[in-house]
């Protein structure tokens, strides 16, 4: 008899390796089986599902909780494969009634938890999954209707944000494409009542927020509908079609004979958790549409905008992107293998869904550059068809620039220029010659100018001159060279010219900060009369001479300029000590580098990070009259938003430091409490706490000061916008001219952009904004922006 060398417990030596790896190996295997069901198989999906149901049924005695967990997670995170997994659950329920019941209970628990932690998008998937389980005979239709009745009754709650009611309405309506038919067949009276309650809610809800979220301000060729309105139209049409829905793949239909033998479960009565202060509901959306069936006349017909098929396709494509955003090749492959490929113009749907995300307001769901790279991967996989659709889309977007939201135009510019840089900048620019005859401030020529500037940044000036027709030279970017006012002998009469020469020689000879100071001492102050008598004066000429000369000497590259800023940091700090000093430094930077906006942006960034200037100075500079000429240029807003982001990150960083230090103190207390219960020496414990408590106090002050600076930054920005816009409005009114100039459209949308891009932070200031800045006396054009913003989370 052979002695078993690797027995379990009998020799008292448990074999750790096998013990601890086994459960997770099994879990991985189960997860893989479930997640990949139907993939890479020669058999049909149905037979794969049948096989898997058999395997899982056999595993239930030992691995029930793991299987439950995996299925719940899949329901929450793989909504694009919803019907595959509801079928699987249906088959399991048919074989094991108790398991079906436990699964339903687990789903309800998961739903409640999602709602508690504000995971509303995932909660919708769970609700949809539950509703499709009605089709699989797992859940009894009447109990599903009852749940929906509770959802719809949320619209009767008082004093709750509209976005809360919206969510419950959306969860109900968006499940109907899957289960409307079944529910209507079983409970038509109740469903009619629910639908009529829906209709009256949708009629009375406010839609002030809609203009702020629309990509285009025009309704032609495709209206930009509020998402609930669009969904309601789609459901109404579905009802009119007697709930016949043909797009969704329903594997459970093949198992009807098995499934209808199964016993169904009743959903427990579901009370929507109450609204709390911590509840954060999803923001409303506007549905982006750019294509219809006329855009692909030779291919399969694109489902209409109010068809439920359109809704389902778009939902599924968005879900695929959400699942695979980190893996661009997988994402592209998954999108292109969406079922129904030959019945729908899939390339058009994909391009539309991607642009919908790219242009989404307030922000795209994912980082912008992802969409550029995803589109390139799609072009690689479908080189014969997708590039043409993309070109068609680009053309359409160009045609509609006049009414496109400025923020969306920014994204279009970034996407198009980056895309072109991957395809040798090949484009039929002549097709866009119409823009050459327009005023340069109009959206189309403006767009082309900004695109060419961005293209230049990714290549070089001569390349851009070469790729566009000669007629486009008026839109070509300036050669990004530096402008040095003391450069030429002919400028020798300029004040400060000799000092500039002196400085140049000194810096080339590796002068120190002190030597620079002594050279600058001789510079006269044109503001001599404005001396505030405190001894310190702001001397614009000193700043001018120093900054012009230094930047000119360091003009070769970004690195050269950064080194210069670092080396002479002391001089900068001293010259820019006052607010006027900071502003003037920025002005001089602009004068030197106005042909090279990219350089201006990186210099401003560096100066903020090294505290030569502060964020408020940058904001004031952007709104200053010297920059009025460039006010609508894209780079200005990139600088402003980058500045705001730096401020926000700074606040978060200090806050995090504070929380970490507090946690350290708490841990220290805990250690002490557990260590010496008998030690009553209070003095020693105080001494230990001392440095940490001091640190916390200091950090607390730092946080408050940073938050105050942050608030001040936003107030400055809003104030300047109000001043600028009011000026324009008054001028137009008294002059009897139309308010709506290209400048005005750009400016008001830039104001909107501040609200949208930083909405979470700005929510903290609502009271101040309402009482101080956006008061009732304000022109209604400006006030409307504020009101739309308030309506977003109302």
């Amino acid at each position, binding site marked *: 008899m052979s002695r078993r060398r690797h027995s379990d417990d009998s020799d008292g030596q448990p074999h750790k390796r096998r013990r601890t790896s086994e459960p997770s190996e099994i879990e*991985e295997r189960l*997860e*893989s089986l479930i*997640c*990949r069901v139907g993939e890479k198989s020669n058999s049909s999906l149905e037979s794969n599902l049948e096989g898997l149901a058999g395997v899982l049924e056999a595993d239930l005695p030992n691995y029930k909780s793991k299987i439950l*967990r*995996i299925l*719940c*997670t*899949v329901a*929450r*995170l*793989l909504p694009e494969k919803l019907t595959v997994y509801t079928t699987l659950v249906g088959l399991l329920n048919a074989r094991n009634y108790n398991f079906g019941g436990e699964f339903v209970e*687990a789903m309800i*628990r*998961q739903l409640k*938890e*999602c709602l508690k*932690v504000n*995971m509303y998008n*995932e909660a919708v998937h769970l609700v949809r999954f539950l509703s499709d389980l009605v089709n699989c005979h797992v859940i009894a239709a009447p109990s599903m209707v009852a749940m929906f009745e509770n959802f719809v009754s949320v619209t009767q709650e008082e004093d709750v944000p509209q976005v809360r009611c919206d969510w419950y309405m959306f969860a109900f309506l968006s499940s109907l494409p899957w289960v409307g038919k079944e529910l209507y067949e079983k409970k038509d009276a109740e469903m009619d009542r629910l639908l009529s309650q829906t209709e009256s809610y949708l009629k009375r809800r406010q839609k002030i927020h809609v203009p702020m979220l629309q990509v285009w301000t025009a309704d032609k060729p495709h209206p930009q509908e509020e998402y609930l309105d669009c969904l309601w139209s789609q459901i109404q049409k579905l009802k009119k079609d007697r709930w016949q829905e043909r797009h969704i793949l329903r594997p459970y239909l093949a198992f009807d004979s098995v499934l209808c033998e199964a016993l169904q479960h009743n959903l427990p009565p579901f009370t929507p958790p109450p609204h709390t202060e911590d509840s954060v509901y999803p923001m409303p959306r506007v549905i982006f549409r750019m294509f219809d069936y006329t855009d692909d006349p030779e291919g399969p017909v694109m489902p209409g905008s109010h068809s439920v098929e359109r809704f389902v396709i778009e939902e599924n494509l968005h879900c695929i992107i959400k*699942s*695979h955003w*980190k*893996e*661009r090749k*997988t994402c592209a492959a998954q999108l292109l293998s969406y079922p129904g490929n030959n019945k729908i113009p899939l390339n058009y749907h994909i391009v539309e869904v991607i642009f919908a995300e790219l242009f989404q307001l307030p922000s795209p769901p994912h*980082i*912008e*550059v*992802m969409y*550029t*790279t995803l589109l*390139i991967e799609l072009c690689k996989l479908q080189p014969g068809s997708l590039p043409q659709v993309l070109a068609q889309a680009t053309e359409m977007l160009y045609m509609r620039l006049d009414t496109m939201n400025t923020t969306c135009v920014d994204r279009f510019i*970034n996407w198009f220029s*980056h895309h072109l*840089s*991957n395809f*040798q900048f090949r484009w039929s620019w002549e097709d866009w010659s119409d823009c050459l005859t327009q005023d340069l401030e109009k959206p189309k020529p403006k767009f082309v100018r900004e695109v060419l500037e*961005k293209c230049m*940044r*990714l*290549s*070089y000036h001569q390349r851009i001159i070469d790729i566009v027709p000669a007629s486009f030279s008026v839109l070509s970017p300036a050669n990004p060279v530096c402008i040095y006012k003391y450069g030429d002998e002919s400028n020798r009469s300029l004040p400060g010219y000799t000092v500039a020469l002196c400085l140049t020689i000194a810096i080339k000879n590796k002068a120190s900060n002190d030597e620079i100071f002594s050279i600058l001492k001789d510079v006269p102050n044109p503001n001599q009369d404005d001396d505030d008598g405190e001894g310190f004066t702001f001397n614009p000429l000193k700043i001018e001479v120093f900054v012009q000369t230094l930047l000119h000497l360091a003009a070769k*590259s*970004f*690195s050269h300029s950064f080194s210069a800023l670092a080396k002479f940091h002391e001089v900068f700090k001293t010259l820019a000590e006052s607010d006027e000093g900071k502003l003037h430094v920025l002005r001089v930077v602009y004068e030197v580098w106005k042909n090279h906006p*990219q*350089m201006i942006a*990186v210099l401003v*960034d560096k100066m903020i990070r090294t505290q030569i200037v502060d964020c408020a100075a940058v904001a004031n500079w952007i709104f200053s009259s010297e920059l009025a000429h460039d006010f609508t240029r894209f780079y200005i807003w990139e600088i402003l938003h*980058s500045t705001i*982001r*730096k401020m926000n990150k700074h606040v978060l960083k200090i806050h995090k430091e504070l929380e970490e230090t507090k946690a350290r103190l708490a841990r220290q207390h805990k250690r002490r409490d557990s260590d010496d219960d008998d030690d009553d020496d209070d003095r020693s414990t105080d001494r230990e706490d001392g440095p940490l408590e001091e640190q916390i106090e200091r950090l607390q002050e730092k946080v408050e000061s940073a938050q105050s600076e942050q608030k001040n930054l936003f107030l400055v920005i809003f104030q300047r916008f109000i001043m600028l816009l009011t000026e324009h409005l008054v001028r137009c009114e008294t002059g009897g001219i139309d308010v709506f100039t290209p400048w005005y459209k750009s400016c008001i949308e830039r104001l909107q952009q501040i609200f949208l891009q930083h909405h979470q932070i700005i929510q903290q200031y609502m009271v101040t904004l309402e009482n101080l800045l956006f008061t009732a006396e304000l022109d209604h054009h400006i006030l409307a922006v504020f009101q739309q913003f308030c309506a977003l989370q109302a």
Partner: protein
Amino acid sequence: GAMSSGGTLSILRSDSYVELSQYRDQHFRGTRYDQERLLRKSCTLYVGNLSFYTTEEQIHELFGKSGDIKKVIMGLDKVKKTACGFCFVEYYARGDAENAMRYINGTRLDDRIIRTDWDAGFKEGRQYGRGRSGGQVRDEYRQDYDAGRGGYGKTVQ
């Protein structure tokens, strides 16, 4: 017990573009383990297959699309002190470097497919090519003609 809303699936955790490559710097001072530890938390990327004419400005523009750049260090020929086709890009935040690995790696700059990889961190001296002629090793031995990288490889020349 209640289902954890934070759980995920391994197929959704896949993040292959962010994984470490097989390359390890032979000149690294420290163990393999040290190097890998640094690579896993690095905010610095090595960027390769650049044209000799690609500028810091172009690199800044492209890599700025995944986040704020702390520093760009151009790779230089050890002898000529001119650009020799690689650089380092350092971000303030790891997440921004990860997005560069996901979305900028394998796309074009100056019409060339560029390649990014994790770097353990810039140290003085690492900005120089390690090829015998002063450029990168790969330009010593390659047989093809590459107009953006000095023409033929050095041994061919």
